């Protein structure tokens, strides 16, 4: 009862908080810009985590540490009587350290590789102690702030998994922060398998062998058969073919080809069934001709999560409603599964609106971070505001 009263008091203060936040605008943006300009490729996040550690020190947090896999974490102690809340943001970016990481700033936008995924998310997490202090909020719960490494692609959430498995006090709940999109509310995790299919054909081409037309043709036969796998529309299930790599010339059939794919489903067991089917297809191809094909799974997630009516989701929805943010509920294939595995209630939120994720022109709108949700908002070059929901 007391908690409910406190929550409704908090709701009524939200608009006041929001206007006070404008005083921290440059501070949050500067964190995003500086994080944006530090290269943080997978397995090379050390400069970014060092920056975050320094910021934690400047905020006088406790238990500041860099762990064995490079995660950076710290604790803002609560007044007592609450539990432990974890706020996590992944530090690694999809970009190699050699590209130009400059961020450009206009009154409306931040633009630069990785700014939306996930420099703004990390900046929001890192700025939390200043934000709480500025708003005069003293939490009862201890707040653990965490910048995780090795999350994307082949990193396969190794940083977060290490933290959750080894943390000395398991958090009661967790909030994962992503730069985009504002309104995102994920509370369940899809089952997912991510894998590579390698195809090799013999070096010496035998003109008499009809079947040996090189690795691209062989891979194409595999792709045709994968696309023929029937997937249910409900519960939502999909097979995504993400990347094909093969060949270098116009007139030489390559002897190697690789396909990257992902299978995801809300239904327990569905992903495993589809992967079994893909394995069969590969065995068939291997048996049919001189082609050698193999499947290697690089990441696996179990489906699961918390309910729409869970207090964490419910409170989040109420806060969003008060801030005129329309929640966009979407299951996640990333961080949440790690918490699901450990039975920790968790959600993922987005901070602002952005465009061009994973492009060199990735950009994020400044205004929605602080002031209001503009349903027609979004970002593009110059002052034009477009993209709808």
């Amino acid at each position: 009862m007391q908690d409910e009263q406190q929550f409704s008091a908090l709701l009524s203060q939200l608009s006041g908080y929001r206007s006070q936040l404008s005083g921290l605008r440059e501070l949050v943006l500067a964190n995003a810009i500086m994080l944006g300009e530090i290269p943080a490729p997978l397995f090379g996040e050390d400069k970014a985590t060092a920056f975050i550690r320094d910021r934690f020190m400047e905020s006088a947090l406790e238990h500041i540490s860099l762990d064995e896999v490079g995660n950076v974490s710290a604790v803002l102690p609560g007044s007592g009587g609450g539990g432990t809340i974890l706020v996590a943001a992944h530090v690694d970016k999809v970009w190699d350290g050699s590209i130009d990481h400059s961020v450009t700033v206009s009154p409306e936008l931040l633009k630069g590789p990785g700014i939306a995924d996930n420099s703004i998310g990390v900046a929001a997490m890192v700025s939390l102690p200043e934000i709480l202090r500025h708003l005069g909020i003293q939490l009862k719960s201890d707040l653990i702030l965490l910048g995780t490494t090795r999350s994307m692609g082949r990193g396969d959430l190794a940083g977060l998994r290490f933290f959750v498995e080894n943390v000395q006090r398991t958090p009661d709940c967790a909030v994962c922060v992503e730069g985009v999109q504002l309104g995102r509310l994920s509370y369940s995790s899809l089952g997912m398998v991510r894998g590579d299919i390698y195809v090799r054909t013999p070096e010496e081409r035998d003109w008499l062998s009809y079947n040996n037309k090189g690795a691209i043709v062989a891979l194409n036969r595999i792709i045709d058969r994968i696309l023929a796998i029937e997937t249910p529309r409900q519960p939502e299930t999909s097979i995504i073919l993400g990347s094909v790599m093969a060949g270098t010339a116009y007139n030489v059939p390559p002897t190697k080809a690789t396909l990257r794919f992902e299978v995801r489903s809300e239904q327990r067991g569905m992903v495993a069934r589809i992967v079994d089917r893909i394995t069969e297809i590969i065995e068939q191809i291997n048996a049919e001709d001189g082609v050698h094909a193999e499947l290697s799974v690089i990441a696996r997630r179990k489906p699961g999560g918390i309910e729409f009516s869970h207090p964490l989701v419910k409170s989040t929805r109420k806060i969003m409603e008060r801030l005129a943010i329309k929640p966009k509920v979407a299951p996640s294939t990333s961080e949440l599964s790690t918490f699901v595995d450990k039975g920790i209630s968790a959600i993922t939120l987005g901070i602002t609106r952005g465009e061009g994720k994973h492009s060199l022109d990735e950009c994020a709108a400044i205004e929605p971070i602080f002031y209001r949700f503009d349903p027609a908002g979004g970002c593009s070059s110059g002052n034009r505001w477009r993209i709808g929901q």
Partner: protein
Amino acid sequence: MEDWAMTDLSSWLDKHTFHHGEFWDLLKLVKEKERKGLTISLCIPTLNEEKTIGKEIVIFKSELMDRYPLVDEIAVIDSGSTDKTREVAASFGADVYLSADILPEQGFKRGKGENLWKAIYQCKSDIICYVDADIKNIHPRFVTGLVAPLIYNDHMHYIKAFYDRPLAFSQGIRPSGGGRVTEILVRPLFSLFFPDLTALIQPLSGEYAVRRQVLHEIPFPIGYGVETSHLIDVYMKYGLAAFGQTDLDQRVHRNQSTLDLGKMSFGILQSFLSRMEAYGLVDKLPATSNIFRQFQAEGNRYQQTTREIIEEERPPMITIPAYRERFGIAEQ
């Protein structure tokens, strides 16, 4: 004489050359600034810099005003940009002034030096730190590295930035120094006329912090010559001891064409000759004038290298008897 000058410069280099990393502790720096009762203005001269000005203001305001109260005001002094420079700067909290509106009775001249000069009138602080607006990799060190030596060293008045340019080198000792105009024009001129000033690794860098009592006593060329002219005037008045320089690591900015560098050199040469005239130095070559001074760096240690370059002269061939004899030319 030459040995004495060399030892002197090398000891000056040791004591007056800093690296921004030495001043990482901003809390300590702010305390020292407050203890000495100093105030600091950051002045950014602009002309059509909408692409880079926003980031500079966000970073400086957040890190050097909101987080650490090191800078008391950020003044953007604009020459009349036709893009959104002033609007962008103001939107992130800078005080924006149109150069023409400051001291209007003095008129308006278009040029960076004009903005720097008017900043002395407009800005209120004891120390003014000038930072160009075209820096792509902006960082708080561009200010802290320059004001810190002034805060900690009462006897220093003028701190210049220098940058370790990413010259290709394999390892160990590497050539160091300034840009093309510095190495081709300014360093040879200084080697000839003001050998002490060759101790400044990048005399033309656009970032420097200066005490007000020095700034308001020197003239300001409004164009390209402003930095060169400052160095000569401050040197003539206070000597090399008043200077310091800080390594700010890399500075990424737009590259200029050779034609633009030609214009720049012409402006610098004009200012240089006017200073020479003002000090009556035009026909006075110092004794060490055939020593050319350049830089090399090893790690974070900078050393001058000196080379004797004697441009000796031969007379016209026709004055040589053997020549005249060989070609049957009679003595004139």
